[in-house]
């Protein structure tokens, strides 16, 4: 046995090991994500109806798609929903995490309370929310019973406001998880840094603004990715809460895609809408990711 070659082999193995460890994940993602995306792009140019077909129809599906008024509704709704939802969840999540990090008594109790909405399947929680928001049964009705006759809260029945009730329910469901993400980040910050800053006489406000929040930057990236992903995929929520109604007023791209692909048997149009969604996501995410990742490369 030549020990030299063995050692040599070892170092070379050490060189290769990281890439080797990464490769199964990468291979799976290439096939099951990018392969399937390519397949969808292909489908969007075929006349697929109930099952995939191979008959090429060019841009026809895209033409149909943009001619549909509720596709436009879905896009507008997504813009409203996603921006409000992401901002609200991030702010609430961050505030709760910072507050919870102040050696709070009963933290062990509060944490699961904040988190539990994620655990419940929205198929059923949607019903509870629907009742709560329903003016005839829920909050408004109860307030009237308590003597506050002028109280009115009928957003869920209002075509222009219904989308905001979806935001409320969505924030309820995930802001606790965002809190957990920020909490993990906060708990990862070295206390020594904070102490040093405090000795220098920094106020709490400045401490968080100048030191802690910048340190949480990676957590913000995670939160943004998770929230935008959830916003784009919000499906159960809408189905359970409003069923896309009143009328089609709360249709979102996810409900649109599902309905065209599987309910309406217009798979080609469904695929086209998925491709448009992916391109939109790419247009927003790629520059952001590029800037974010480039930044930290330095």
């Amino acid at each position, binding site marked *: 046995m030549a020990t030299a070659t063995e050692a040599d082999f070892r170092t070379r193995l050490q060189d290769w090991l990281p890439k080797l460890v990464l490769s199964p994940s990468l291979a799976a993602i290439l096939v099951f994500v990018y392969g399937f995306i390519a397949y969808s792009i292909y489908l969007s140019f075929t006349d697929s*109806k*109930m*099952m995939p077909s191979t008959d090429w129809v060019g841009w026809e599906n895209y033409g*149909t798609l943009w*001619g*549909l008024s*509720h596709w436009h509704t879905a896009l507008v709704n997504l813009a409203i929903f996603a921006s409000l939802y992401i901002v609200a969840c991030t702010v609430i999540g961050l505030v709760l995490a910072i507050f919870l990090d102040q050696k709070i008594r009963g933290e062990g109790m509060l944490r699961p309370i904040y988190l539990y909405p994620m655990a419940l399947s929205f198929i059923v929680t949607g019903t509870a929310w*629907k009742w709560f928001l*329903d*003016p*005839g*049964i829920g909050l408004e009705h109860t307030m009237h019973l308590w003597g506050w006759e002028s109280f009115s809260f*009928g957003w*869920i*029945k209002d*075509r222009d406001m219904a989308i905001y009730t979806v935001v409320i329910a969505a924030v309820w469901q995930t802001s606790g998880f965002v809190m957990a993400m920020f909490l993990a980040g906060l708990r990862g910050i070295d206390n020594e840094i904070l102490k040093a800053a405090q000795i220098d006489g920094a106020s709490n406000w400045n401490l968080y603004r100048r030191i802690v929040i910048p340190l949480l930057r990676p957590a913000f990236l995670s939160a943004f990715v998770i929230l935008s992903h959830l916003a784009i995929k919000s499906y159960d929520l809408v189905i359970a*809460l*409003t*069923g*896309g*109604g*009143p*009328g*089609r*007023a709360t249709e979102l791209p996810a409900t649109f895609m599902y*309905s065209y692909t*599987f*309910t*309406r*048997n*217009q798979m080609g149009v469904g695929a086209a809408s998925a491709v448009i969604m992916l391109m939109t996501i790419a247009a927003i995410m790629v520059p952001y990711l590029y800037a974010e990742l480039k930044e930290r490369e330095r």
Partner: protein
Amino acid sequence: MRKMKTLTAAAALASVGGWAAAQEGGSGVEVLHWWTSGGEAAALNVLKEDLSGQSIGWNDMPVAGGGGEAAMTALRARVTAGNPPTAVQMLGFDIQDWAAEGALGNLNEVAAAEGWDAVVPAALQQFSKYEGNWIAAPVNVHSTNWVWANKAVLDELGIAQPTTWDELVAAMEAVEAAGKVALAHGGQAWQDATIFDGVVLSTGGPEFYKAAFIDLDPEALGSETMVQAFDRMSQLREFVDDNFSGRDWNLASAMVANGEAAFQIMGDWAKGEFKNAGLTPGEDILCFRMPGTEGAVTFNSDQFAMFNVTDETAVTNQAAMASAIMSPEFQVAFNTVKGSVPARTDVADTEFDACGKQGMADLAAAAEAGTLMGSMAHGHANRAAVKNAIYDVVTAHFNGEYDSQTAAEELVNAVEAAM
């Protein structure tokens, strides 16, 4: 490299074969369905027991949701994976679409032996047969042009059962004046469309209904009669309460059962909710055809489509299952629970309640007169794409986005775009 490919392919083949064997090899039938609520599933259990009496096993594969939408999605995944169930609950045009894919088996032998052609109404056969071959066994016939009314409420207000559209409107006005909800309704696209079925049939008659929804004649779709039908929808819109939007149909039925509301326009499955509330259909709860639609029936029918199987025993099992479904005993046992009526017209009605008896008589008469027509709202008048396109317009109009004139115009456009 090549060797590896061959290996994987072989392994894949072997495993596909493995299933095929497990699936078709005499073990029984695998049934995909969405009848999961208490009464429905119990009714289906009758079929299961029947088959187990013939030592045919039952692999249950229930996937509920969206009136069968979730099950149809699951079915697509199963077929794509090369692992289709033996029998699948299906509605209307889905059966024809799957037949067109070449995925369905053939039941001609058992159909001929039992004389299905003679007892199943022709309007149903349109869905159970493809290119002249039996591909599915119909379980039930639901009809959608029903009005349900709380008798106590009507009596209290001195309202007689309405027989014309104007009487219906007058009755609703009287209810509203008495401070109750006239029409219990849930604002969901399919519920709006269910009402629309009855309204169009009532406004234009069977010929018009057929021209508009089954033949998709643009002239009928954009006609004055259609505008009038939309006007009647607006009329009905005035009679629903403020909180109708998004309500489950079950809760709308509960409103009628409680006496909070007087009428509900809904398919005959609503009967289950009324019975559950301890009310007797025909006595406490009146059932009558949407005024102006007497003599005609808009239906939807659940059927079990049989998928292609090659194995000998599996074919026998399928035939046995189809035969069991079509047996008068099962048709009675199932439909008394489900609220629907049997899919064959030669079954005695003794076991059924008053509404069921009327439903059976109506069905037979309509089948005879050629006025038994597929329900647009429930996918038996046209394919899914068209159905949903009509939904879009109807629900938009009902929620005040279009006036009646525009709605009729949009209807023509939407149907054309979806065809």
